[in-house]
């Protein structure tokens, strides 16, 4: 076993050629040792006195040094001290004929690895140097490890500060609670998302957390077994202004036990606002759908009720009114489908080159009968060369049908509708000027809202879904155009529609 180790050490020395410094004033011994060691594979340098020994030993990184204790100029112990000071990893041996207990202690204290009594046999020297070299290898390894550890610690510190910077940059609040229920980490967003203005320390922060979050945390801390699930809860922090969602997750130790709880607090105010708008829209749609259904059901119940005993004429009247209501319900459903298709952008478009004059003309023809009933006249004024546009024919037809049918519906008896088409550099411009009932400023703002219908003494008896102009606006917007409205209450309304001209081809 011991022999095996020795053989290994010998091989190692042959391979790595350790650098040895021999400091001895005795020339014969110096040269003899040098020759012996070089044969064994060492790289040897020599110094003939203490001064030279210090010079060589401090300027070069020797693996090993063998220093004679008694030299004429400088004492071997001082040489040892100087070399150890400059090169702590050079393994030094003291060689002496005057071995004494005191010098042994002193040399060990100064960092000598061993003590070789003189005179020594070659074997004794080689044996000691092998041991010394093994020591040298260990020392270098340990130094390497130390350096690596320091580098790792630095890296770890950098990593932590980087991570902390990242977590602080996240808009979501991040909070970590340990098993003892203490806050051990929190980023700045925790304060913002929970509207906590001040907390002097983590303890105060804990006392300011909403009960709902505390309850979730207690769930984990109070359980004997590790709860692996995440929980979430929504909390209204400021009424109607700040909503957050808190998600709690367990933080396990490597052995599977609970180390703590992580809480992520996200601001979901915008989401809640959209939810509210959606709910309002759904409730409006429900109301608009239910109104005609309720009316028709009312009529049908009357018709079927034998006790009421209505006349033939009344029955016919109720049936035709029911049909009207159902037609308007169908219109409403179609409008709603159009709106949702346009919003989802699932509507199949067929983009073709369109002559806007033709579309307006055919729309006017369609509305003429209705207009004539109330003696309303159309007046179409078009520029000689109106540019063509590229668009879906159905959509553009729908746009002008909605605008022009409004111009008829909300016009006065014997009123007029003037349509002027023109253009500038970028837009095809269509003005629709009616002499109708006009709009109040309040109504102008809400005109394009879903289901908004102007209600006053003039508009009673005018039917509609309240979606016509919403659809117009959506179509115009989808072609990157714009629509403007000017109106004088009681005088009339002018809609100006701008549709971009495609100049590219």
């Amino acid at each position, binding site marked *: 076993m011991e022999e095996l180790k020795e053989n290994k050490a010998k091989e190692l020395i042959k391979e790595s050629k350790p650098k040895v410094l021999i400091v001895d004033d005795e020339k014969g011994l110096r040269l003899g040792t040098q020759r012996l060691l070089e044969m064994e594979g060492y790289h040897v340098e020599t110094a003939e006195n203490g001064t030279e020994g210090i010079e060589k030993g401090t300027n070069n990184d020797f693996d090993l040094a063998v220093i004679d204790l008694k030299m004429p100029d400088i004492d071997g112990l001082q040489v040892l001290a100087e070399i150890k000071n400059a090169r702590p990893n050079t393994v030094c041996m003291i060689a002496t004929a005057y071995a004494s207990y005191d010098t042994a202690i002193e040399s060990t204290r100064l960092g000598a690895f061993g003590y070789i009594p003189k005179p020594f046999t070659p074997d004794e020297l080689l044996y000691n140097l092998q041991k010394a070299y093994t020591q040298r290898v260990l020392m270098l390894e340990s130094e390497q490890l130390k350096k690596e550890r320091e580098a790792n610690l630095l890296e770890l510190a950098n990593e932590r500060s980087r991570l902390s910077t990242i977590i602080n940059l996240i808009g979501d609040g991040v909070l970590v609670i340990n098993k003892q229920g203490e806050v051990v980490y929190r980023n700045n967003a925790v304060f913002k998302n929970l509207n906590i203005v001040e907390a002097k320390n983590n303890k105060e922060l804990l006392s300011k957390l909403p009960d709902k979050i505390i309850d979730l945390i207690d769930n984990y801390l109070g359980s004997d077994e590790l709860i692996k699930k995440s929980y979430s809860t929504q909390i209204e922090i400021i009424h109607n202004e700040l909503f957050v969602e808190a998600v709690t997750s367990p933080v396990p130790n490597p052995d599977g036990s609970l180390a703590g709880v992580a809480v992520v607090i996200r601001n979901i105010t915008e989401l809640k606002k959209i939810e509210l708008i959606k*709910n309002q829209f*759904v*409730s409006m749609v*429900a*109301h608009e759908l*239910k*109104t005609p*259904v*309720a*009316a*028709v*059901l*009312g*009529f049908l*119940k*009357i018709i079927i*009720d034998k*006790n*009421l*005993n*209505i006349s033939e004429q*009344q029955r016919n009247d*109720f049936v035709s*009114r029911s049909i009207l*209501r159902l037609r308007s319900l169908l219109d409403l459903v179609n409008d709603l489908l159009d709106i949702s298709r346009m919003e989802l952008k699932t509507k199949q478009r067929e983009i073709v080159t369109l002559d806007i004059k033709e579309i307006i003309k055919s729309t006017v023809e369609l509305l003429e009968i209705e207009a004539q009933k109330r003696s309303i006249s159309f007046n179409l004024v078009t520029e000689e060369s109106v540019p063509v546009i590229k668009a879906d024919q159905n959509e553009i037809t729908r746009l002008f049908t909605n605008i022009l049918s409004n111009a008829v519906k909300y016009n006065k008896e014997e009123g007029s509708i003037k349509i002027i088409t023109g253009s500038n550099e970028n837009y095809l411009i269509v003005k629709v000027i009616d002499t109708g009932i006009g709009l109040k400023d309040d109504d102008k703002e809400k005109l394009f809202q879903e289901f908004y219908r102007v*209600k006053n003494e003039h508009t*009673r008896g005018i039917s509609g879904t309240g979606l016509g102009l919403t659809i117009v606006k959506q179509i115009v917007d989808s072609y990157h155009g714009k629509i403007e409205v000017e109106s004088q209450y009681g005088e009339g309304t002018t809609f100006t529609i701008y549709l971009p001209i495609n100049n590219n081809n």
Partner: protein
Amino acid sequence: MALIAIIDDDPDIIEASKLVLKSHGFDIITASNPDDGYKIVMEKNPDLIILDVMMDEPDDGFFLAQKFRKNNVKTPILMYTSVSKTTGYDFGQSDMVPVDDFVEKPISPEELIEKVNKLLNKN
């Protein structure tokens, strides 16, 4: 015979309710907006008011009911509601909603007559 005021902006609902109530011998006056509704109630002093919750604006019926109560009109009010249940807008009886009972649209003639009789007999 008792006089009932129906205030609703849907002429078809007015027509149907009127027919049902008339067949049970009630006298009916009607209005299709909150202003006219207020007027006919002040002028004719009916025994019962039937009021639609949503007229021009979603809460018109409520505001009118509150206006009646503020001006010391103690006539019982039966309110027609439409989407209250589906939208979670469930009204209980409170100062905010000073009405005596509700009928959910579409209106069933039997339920309407039953509720009308109940409210009229209370006084």
